């Protein structure tokens, strides 16, 4: 008896363990690729002095809905897919401003805002629709970066795949059924790791030194003129912040001025008696933190030898007016000199340069213009810009709307002419005389194709400082370019300090799955069960006869009676 019962028990244990193994294997559901995969770019996540801003989460695993959702629907486990063309500010204010719970947001931007889109003009959209879209996007960007959003927010570009998905979602929403686990629809999955703090966000300042002509017997240090531009950007989507105007135009102008003066200075006969210091600083959007560090690294003599500094900020899309912003009072001799040089050249070139004075408040940490950092260390400086008023913190820092198609090369060419001629006037002492050094069709002419090629490169490189490592190829490229035009190039590597903390995870891939609802699966199970039962009965009837089928369900009554 014992041996007989052992065998079935061993068999049973084996059987059970096999079944358990099968269940474990089956339960390992690995997500294979969805039918559609789209590149998406995350909203920036940062803290200012511990106060959180931006999108705080990165991974998404929810059902999708469009803007036509039912008014009473619970959206806390739904991702909203919103094309920019259909966005209206009332929705933004209600849901984002009003901190309503959402599973996630994905904004679909038209292709014209993508820097990956080859060719400026897109075929089937007229230019008239660009301007209002640009304004909407600008407003949206400003709201998003100043709000704390406890759900993932992503940006994506319209393409055929996601457009068809959106149409389908709209159809489903129009029929009144929100997509949940029981009604099928589309599921959006972004599998991203939890965003971590960027430990020590690097700032790299690049400086180029072009020494002037020292005549023998001259024991005094030559005076210096500094030309500075900040090269990093900040925007709603750090992976898309290319900042063509802010401050791509400034960088390009600086490089072209460096090239022109290096040509002039290469010949000792034309070398001026001024040193030229070119500075490409980082940390611009964060109260020009990098500029301050750069200036603090100067030794006293160099700082005292700087006659004045010209900072370039957004000079790529102006028509007739440029502004020179100063913080020292206009009565100051140097300021007067600068203004005179610039306005006379501007008059010759056919446009106007205006002076704007803004006092700096030492106790206020906000630094609106780059020249203010110079002024705080008692160096005369001015900022040349097309903006007439000082931007707020994190405004006009090269975000989503600042793309290549909104920058005018001709404006940059005119700005370069202005800067170069004005500097030359000061360096060679041609005040009051009408001399054109960098005339067109001379070998010192401003080169528009140089400007264009650098502008194109800059418009394809996102440059948010915490995500630019100190060995980034872009920084190396800038360094090499300055090395071509100047004698001595130095890199200063620092860490962004102060109130800003950043988090990583800026791009991801969105998988779109079309899922069937649970009711569908249950229904299918029911249908299959009944099919198998019908098949079973059919086979029993045809091969064994109807009586056998009935006898399967009836317990044999006769045996019980016999034993009793």
């Amino acid at each position, binding site marked *: 008896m014992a041996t007989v019962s052992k065998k079935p028990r061993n068999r049973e244990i084996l059987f059970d363990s096999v079944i358990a193994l099968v269940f474990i294997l*089956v339960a390992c*559901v690995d997500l294979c690729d969805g039918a559609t995969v789209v590149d998406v770019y995350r909203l920036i996540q940062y803290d200012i002095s511990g106060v959180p801003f931006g999108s705080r989460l990165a991974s998404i695993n929810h059902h999708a809905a469009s803007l036509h959702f039912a008014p009473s629907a619970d959206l806390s486990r739904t991702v909203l897919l919103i094309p920019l063309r259909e966005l209206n500010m009332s929705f933004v204010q209600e849901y984002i401003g009003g901190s309503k719970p959402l599973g996630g947001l994905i904004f679909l931007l038209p292709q014209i805002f993508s820097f990956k889109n080859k060719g400026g003009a897109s075929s089937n959209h007229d230019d008239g629709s660009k301007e209002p879209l640009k304004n909407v996007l600008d407003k949206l960007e400003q709201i998003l970066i100043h709000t704390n959003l406890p759900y993932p927010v992503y940006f994506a570009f319209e393409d055929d795949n996601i457009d068809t998905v959106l149409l389908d979602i709209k159809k489903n929403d129009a029929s009144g059924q929100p997509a949940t686990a029981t009604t099928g629809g589309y599921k959006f999955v972004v599998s991203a790791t939890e965003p971590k703090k960027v430990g020590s966000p690097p700032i790299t300042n690049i400086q180029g030194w072009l020494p002037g002509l020292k005549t023998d017997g001259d024991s005094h240090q030559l005076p210096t003129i500094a030309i500075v531009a900040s090269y990093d950007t900040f925007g709603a989507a750090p992976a898309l912040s290319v900042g063509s105007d802010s401050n791509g135009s400034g960088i390009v102008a600086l490089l072209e001025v460096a090239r022109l003066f290096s040509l002039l200075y290469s010949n000792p006969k034309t070398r001026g008696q001024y040193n030229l210091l070119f500075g490409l600083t980082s940390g611009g959007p964060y109260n020009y933190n990098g500029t301050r560090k750069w200036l603090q690294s100067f030794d006293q003599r160099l700082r005292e030898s700087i006659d004045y500094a010209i900072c370039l900020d957004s000079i790529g899309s102006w028509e007739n007016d440029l502004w020179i912003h100063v913080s020292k009072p206009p009565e100051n001799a140097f300021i007067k000199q600068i203004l005179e040089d610039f306005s006379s050249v501007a008059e010759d070139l056919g446009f106007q340069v205006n002076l704007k004075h803004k006092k700096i408040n030492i106790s206020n940490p906000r630094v609106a213009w780059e020249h203010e950092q110079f002024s705080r260390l008692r160096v005369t400086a001015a900022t040349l810009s097309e903006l007439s008023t000082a931007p707020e913190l994190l405004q006009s820092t090269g975000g989503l709307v600042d793309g290549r198609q909104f920058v005018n090369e001709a404006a940059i060419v005119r700005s370069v002419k202005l800067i170069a001629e004005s500097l030359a006037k000061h360096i060679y002492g041609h005040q009051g005389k009408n001399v054109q050094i960098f005339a067109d069709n001379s070998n010192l002419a401003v080169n528009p194709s140089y400007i264009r090629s650098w502008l194109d490169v800059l418009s394809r490189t996102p440059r948010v400082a915490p995500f630019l490592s100190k060995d980034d190829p872009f920084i190396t490229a800038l360094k090499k370019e300055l090395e071509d035009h100047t004698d001595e190039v130095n890199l200063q590597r620092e860490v962004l300090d102060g109130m800003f903390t950043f988090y990583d995870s800026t791009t991801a891939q969105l998988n779109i*799955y079309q*899922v*069937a609802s*649970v009711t569908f*699966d249950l229904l*299918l*199970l029911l249908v299959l069960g009944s099919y198998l039962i019908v098949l079973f009965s059919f086979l029993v009837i045809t091969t*064994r006869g109807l009586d056998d089928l009935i006898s399967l369900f009836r317990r044999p009554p006769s045996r019980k009676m016999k034993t009793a």
Partner: protein
Amino acid sequence: MTVFHFFNCAILTFGPHAVYYSATPLSEYDTLGTSIKAAVVYLATALVKLICLATFLKVSESDSFDPYQEFLKALIGFIDVAGLYFALTQLTHRNISQNHKFQAVGLGWAFADSVLHRLAPLWVGARGLEFTWEYILQGLEANANLVLSISLAGLGSLMWLRKNKPKTLIPIIYLCAGIVATMPSITSYLRRGLGWHLPKVVGFELFTSLVMAFISWQLFAACQRPSA
């Protein structure tokens, strides 16, 4: 629900085999051994077919219907028939009536075919989040394949195991066997040459399998009458 979907499709693909085994008298006569032997023969046949396909067929880039290639594939498909012949005649079965023998062989054959061709895609594909009708259609195809295999086995047993057949029926038997054996080529021609979509092809397979099963059943019954 993805595991749920896998479970559903698995039931659809493999359930009918189990149901067939338990519903018909096959389970009473314990013909499981025969089915397993038939499955092993199918495996061997599939390996031989693979080797022949690899040796004789060219890899075509386009998905069009190339008559020469398809003819070669059909020829190689007859290796299937040879395998079935081997399973029916050469393997020593216990004393099972001819009626049950061909059913057991056909069942084992179809089960091995389903497992080899359909289990792996089902495992990898049906567990994902994305929903497609593909696996349900594949299950229906497995059902049609079961019916076809059993009819082919039945016709085969008629051809090779039964000695006294009515003379008039012999050509019909061979014709039906020929049609059933070339079913794979016909379906691939429909899919590639005429460009039918999967649901249409599966529907066609189900319909023809039922028709051929009915015809084989009638033939079998007709052949049984003289001896009974």
